[in-house]
């Protein structure tokens, strides 16, 4: 039995972000997978230790365009835990609203892309047209479609007016109806079921042992959701369901996202109704009061996101900043779920974990700007990044 190696990536039409997978195949069946990451390195963790908290926040926001709100929210919560700042109540609700709007647009994005990858372009275009309505709401509330720059240390930047509240509710009603229609299509359409059911199987014990997070884990029966287990922002006062499917395949993972979109719409409407009045921003010290460390965990659209920060007393820059993004945690699970499947099923399985490799590769220092092979020592490189 000879096995053939197929290399997919870094640039490939089936992948939306650059990564390289080497598949060992025997005929049409995948026998082994080896991922190769690091194509979108930007030296973010090193750069963050040389920028103040405020400057670093804007860099953190650009780790990923689609889940930018989750990154800023986690960063702001981590920095607030070391600076001993408590955001006001109204700010927590506003953060929750924008966070859930971010989740809705991210899920609609990947569900549309899933349809495109199997060739169902009509549904892809229809879903993305409805996603535009969400982007318009986000632009109205925060000022920009992506890169919202909404969360700041100590609160949020902008208040929401009554006109904006009513516009949001109107738009969300329309979106909820359409989402229910599309969800029915996913449940009943024979083409979608043929391409996604029983593809990318990931059993529950394996999902738990390999550290899968987010819809990847919830599609395999593991009931973990940071919003329910370790509530943050306004989630301790909002009731919602944790969606779990037991089918353990790509179809289940995509269905989890449809149901979560409906739940998020409900959460936003509840937050808009229950929002308390009050200030939206508090005072923040410029430097850390003592040597300490803190971490913050949130549920980004793709799963559990954790930021870990160390600060030194009297310093206005973090000592060490660590980001562990959900796609990074899902990669061992992807390698597991692709084994034993067909080559033609690779895109369908890959899209169901919602890969975001910009999030995954943000560690340490690589001089990708000049493209030159690195043969200088790290200290010279570090000097180049100082202002």
């Amino acid at each position, binding site marked *: 039995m000879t096995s053939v190696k197929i290399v997919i990536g870094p640039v490939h039409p089936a992948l939306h972000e650059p990564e390289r997978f080497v598949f060992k195949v025997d005929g049409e069946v995948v026998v082994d997978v080896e991922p190769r*990451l*690091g194509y979108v*390195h930007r030296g973010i*963790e*090193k750069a963050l230790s040389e920028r103040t908290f405020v400057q670093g926040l804007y860099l953190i926001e650009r780790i990923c365009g689609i889940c930018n709100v989750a990154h800023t929210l986690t960063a702001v919560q981590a920095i607030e835990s070391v600076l001993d700042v408590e955001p006001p109540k109204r700010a927590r609700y506003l953060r929750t609203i924008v966070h859930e709007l971010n989740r809705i647009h991210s899920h609609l994005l990947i569900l549309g892309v899933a349809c495109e990858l199997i060739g169902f372009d009509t549904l892809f275009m229809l879903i993305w047209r409805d996603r535009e309505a969400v982007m318009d709401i986000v632009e109205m509330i925060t000022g920009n479609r992506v890169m919202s720059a909404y969360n700041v240390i100590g609160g949020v930047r902008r208040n929401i007016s009554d006109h904006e509240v009513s516009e949001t509710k109107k738009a969300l009603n329309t979106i909820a109806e359409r989402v229910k229609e599309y969800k029915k299509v996913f449940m009943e359409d024979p083409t979608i079921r043929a391409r996604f059911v029983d593809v990318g199987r990931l059993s529950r*014990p394996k999902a*738990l*042992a*390999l*550290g899968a997070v987010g819809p990847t884990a919830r599609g395999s029966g*593991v009931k*973990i959701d940071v919003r329910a*287990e*370790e509530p943050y922002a306004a989630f301790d006062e909002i009731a919602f369901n944790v969606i779990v499917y037991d089918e353990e395949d790509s179809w289940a993972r995509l269905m989890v996202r449809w149901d979560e979109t409906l739940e998020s719409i409900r959460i936003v409407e509840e937050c808009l109704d229950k929002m308390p009045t009050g200030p939206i921003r508090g005072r923040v010290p410029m430097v850390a009061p003592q040597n300490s460390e803190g*971490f913050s*965990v949130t549920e980004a659209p793709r799963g*559990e996101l*954790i930021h*870990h920060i*160390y600060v030194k007393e009297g310093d206005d820059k973090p*000592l*060490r900043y*660590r980001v*562990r993004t959900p796609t*990074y*945690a899902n*990669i*061992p699970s992807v390698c597991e779920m692709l084994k034993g499947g067909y080559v033609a099923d690779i895109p369908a399985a890959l899209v169901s974990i919602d890969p975001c490799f910009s999030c995954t*590769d943000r*560690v*340490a*220092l*690589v001089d990708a700007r000049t493209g030159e*092979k*690195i*043969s200088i*020592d*790290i200290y010279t490189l570090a000097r180049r990044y100082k202002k």
Partner: protein
Amino acid sequence: MAKECNNLVEAFKRGLKEGFLGYEYDAKKRVLKLFVEKGALSKLFRLINEICGGEHHVTTITGADLGGEEIELTYFSWLLPQRLRVVIKTRVPKRDSRVQSLVGMAPALILYEREVYEMLGVTFEGHPKLEKLFLPEDWPEGVYPLRRG
């Protein structure tokens, strides 16, 4: 919740003996921080797996060079039955930066250990494939980007 946590801590103290250096419990956020010796890590993970019946979700490892003679490793985990976040801290001296790999007990650590190895130079003995993860293949040996001085 505090009582359950005390039971856990007692079980760890009994199992690790001198390897157990201390603990901190934050009741409001439900976070249990444990300080252990680097040699006691594998025993601690085995104990945690036993106590949770395998429902142990590993989050990540952070390696940090805080400017001294040691590198601090922080392991984050979530225990499903107890609904508790566990933060395990250990220190590894820079001169002898070898730690036992825990991939056999917690397969989720396979990529995180590679990242700590390439960024900080901590060698995980027993790791099936300890090589660079994010850095390019021609990165010079012995240069660890996140070490200071």
